[in-house]
């Protein structure tokens, strides 16, 4: 290893040693002297470079991080809170939607379900006990009135069935009660003029703001009932 190369390599990396370097040092006293000088220089450089560090720097760094992560924590809490609020809102809306939206797609399904649900409350032998006056009082809500009861009216009252408020009339029929529903026009429920299942049949009438649905058993002359309703009802504005 020649002198120049040795010096270059030692000045670049004073602590570097390999076999070639060690051999070169051993064989040459001038190189040993050079290394001694270099060692002194290295000490000086090291001392000069190790400028004093502010005593409290480590503590400051830890303190600042503590504050910063506290802020971060607060932000996280806020985010979590708003996420919880969103979830609660969505759940509320879902429940609302499920409770108050119609399960039934058309008037027929709705009416048959309603009749079946309340069938046990009414019997064809019940005495007529609703007067025309009280019927019309209830009809006022739907802006309609009847000029006669056109049959034996067993029951007339508001019903909330599957989210829609309707007026439920029950007449004495030939063998089983005839149900008439007056309910407001609902966009969610499709109007259907005739419907039936294995026991019941029904017809619907569409007026300005309301639908009138008649449901009776298969023997019942529903068409006749329908005519009676149309003949006797008048709508106010």
């Amino acid at each position, binding site marked *: 290893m020649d002198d120049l190369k040795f010096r*270059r*390599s030692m*000045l*670049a*990396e*004073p602590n570097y040693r390999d076999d070639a370097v060690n051999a070169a040092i051993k064989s040459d006293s001038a190189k040993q002297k050079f290394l001694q*000088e*270099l060692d002194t*220089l*290295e000490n*000086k*450089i*090291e*001392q*000069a*470079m*190790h*400028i004093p*560090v*502010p005593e409290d*720097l*480590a503590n*400051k*760094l*830890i303190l*600042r*991080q503590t504050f*910063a*992560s506290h802020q971060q924590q607060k932000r996280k809490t806020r985010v979590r809170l708003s996420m919880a609020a969103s979830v609660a809102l969505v759940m509320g809306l879902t429940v609302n939607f499920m409770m108050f939206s119609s399960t039934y797609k058309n008037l027929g399904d709705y009416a048959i379900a309603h009749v079946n649900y309340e069938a046990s409350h009414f019997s064809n032998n019940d005495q007529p006990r609703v007067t025309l006056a009280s019927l019309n009082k209830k009809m006022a809500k739907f802006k309609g009135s009847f000029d006669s009861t056109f049959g034996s009216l067993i029951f007339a009252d508001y019903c909330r069935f599957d989210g829609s408020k309707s007026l439920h009339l029950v007449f004495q029929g030939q063998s089983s009660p005839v149900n008439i529903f007056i309910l407001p026009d609902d966009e969610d429920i499709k109007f259907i003029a005739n419907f039936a299942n294995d026991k019941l049949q029904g017809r619907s009438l569409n007026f300005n703001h309301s639908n009138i649905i008649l449901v009776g058993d298969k023997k019942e002359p529903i068409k006749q009932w329908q005519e009676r309703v149309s003949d006797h009802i008048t709508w106010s504005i």
Partner: protein
Amino acid sequence: MAKKQVRYEALVKALHADLYRYGYWLCHDKHVAEDLVQETFLRAWRALDSLKDEKAAKSWLITILRRENARRFERKRFDMSEYEEATIADVKATSSEQEIENYWLRGKIAQMPEEYREPLVLQVIGGFSGEEIAGILSLNKNTVMTRLFRARNQLKEAVDDEPKLRGLHNG
């Protein structure tokens, strides 16, 4: 969380001094160096989970600090470009011969071109090998070795000339 805190505090205690010194030699200003170290450690805290190898922590932090320093120049392009000797703390008044010697040599180190000084600082303070310095500075190893040689050679020449210079100053 607590574990992360412990890791962080250990990192701060072990490496803040070297990082501060490295920062100082980048910007020649105690306060700016302190700011740089603070920013560096804050960033380190946020990314601490990504640091898998504790051995790599030092070069990782140095890389963050270099980036922070570069960002400082993006923000304001004025000052800090020229080194002024006056910005180095004056220790003459109260200190020993050794400290005066240090002070003098600090001036010489500060006057060195940045490209020579930085590898030298990384080698002396950081204890990195030529290869590691090449990695941190994105240079090839031969370039780093040449710069290290030139840096130390300049300081050697300055020190060899010192008595003459000091003699002139003193009288």
